[in-house]
């Protein structure tokens, strides 16, 4: 549909033992056209929580504003930053608050939990969420998910005793995996490409890397 800045992006998040990788491409497109090649879709909500969203741009921005405001209030009331699981619950509640006129945003939240382990939460548009070991959203997610399933086989969250969802891969290996995923998705998905932004959260803090992707 022309004139609707829907970001059909692809975003991927992988949780590791002591790190979390969130990556998204930087293309914004509408219909068959590209609006810009350099648009960041990854937003840092708290010290240890980073969110990437695909969907309708205006709704994504509004959602980020609401979450930032709520986080500020939390910081004033509790004198500390929100943990990632807390932010995950807040995001879910914020989305469900608009159950009958939803935010057209498909989110993936990544970060470190209170023990320093990586966590990834995946959402639908109305706030149903689940903590998983890896996730992808957006137009390239149908292309990437089977490959991630194959490489990162995560145990089912229904198993007892509860098994760790995080991947045993090391941080450089996970980043390589993400780069491979995006290189493949760029080949076959018209909405994915230009540049890949990778955000890595670990005990040392947060860092951003960039990688060039195909521009066609």
């Amino acid at each position, binding site marked *: 549909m022309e004139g609707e800045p829907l970001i059909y992006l692809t975003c991927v998040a992988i949780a590791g033992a002591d790190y979390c990788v969130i990556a998204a491409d930087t293309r914004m497109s509408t219909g068959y056209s590209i609006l810009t090649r350099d648009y960041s879709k990854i937003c840092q909500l708290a010290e240890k929580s980073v969110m990437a969203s695909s969907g309708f741009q205006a709704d994504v921005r509004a959602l980020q504003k609401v979450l930032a405001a709520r986080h500020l209030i939390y910081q004033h009331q509790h004198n500390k930053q929100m943990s990632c699981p807390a932010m995950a619950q807040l995001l879910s509640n914020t989305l469900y608050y608009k159950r009958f006129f939803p935010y057209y945003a498909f989110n993936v939240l990544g970060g470190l939990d209170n023990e320093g382990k990586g966590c990834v939460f995946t959402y639908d548009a109305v706030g149903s969420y689940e903590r998983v070991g890896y996730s992808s959203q957006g137009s*390239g997610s*149908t*292309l990437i*998910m*089977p*490959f991630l399933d*194959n490489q990162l086989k995560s145990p089912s969250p229904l198993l007892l005793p509860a098994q760790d969802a995080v991947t045993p891969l090391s941080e450089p290996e996970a980043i390589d995996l993400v780069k491979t995923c995006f290189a*493949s998705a760029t080949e*076959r998905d018209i909405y994915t490409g230009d540049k890949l932004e990778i955000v890595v959260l670990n005990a040392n803090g947060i860092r951003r890397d960039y990688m060039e992707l195909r521009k066609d």
Partner: protein
Amino acid sequence: MSIFEYNGSALVAMVGKNCFAIASDRRLGVQLQTIATDFQRIYKIHENLFIGLSGLATDAQTLYQRLVFRHKLYQLREERNMKPETFASLVSAILYEKRFGPYFCQPVIAGLGDDNKPFICTMDSIGAKELAKDFVVAGTASESLYGACEAMFKPDMEAEELFETLSQALLSSVDRDCLSGWGGHVYVV
């Protein structure tokens, strides 16, 4: 629901070093109900030529019967097997005959041509050929298959490695598609 998603299917063919592999899932369903878990979608035309038919199962079976008939006639007249490229053109022509009332099938053709050179191609339901040098996919799981194959494919794989790669790609892709699954048939030539 689209007519192509009535039965559910997943088909993929990949090229290796002087060999090819073609694989399909085994589920036959009627929308959300599974009817069979051992349904065959890939048919042998001759020793070095296989065709897989995704989409509506009844059209796949009818189309297969017509193609076998045409190939047998060809064998009687020319006293040799059809080359894969020729067969692909035949399938394309037969599908386009029904341009305004098509067979709801997407074929995937894989064969070995002269000098054991592997040939793969796919078509849409009205016969538009798409030749590829690496892999082709069809069916309800095609998007997942695109992603998995693109990530796992390497050029010039030997037969065993090709089998492994194709099986892994097929299995992980159909696991993300509710209309296909229940295992896979893989033919490596």
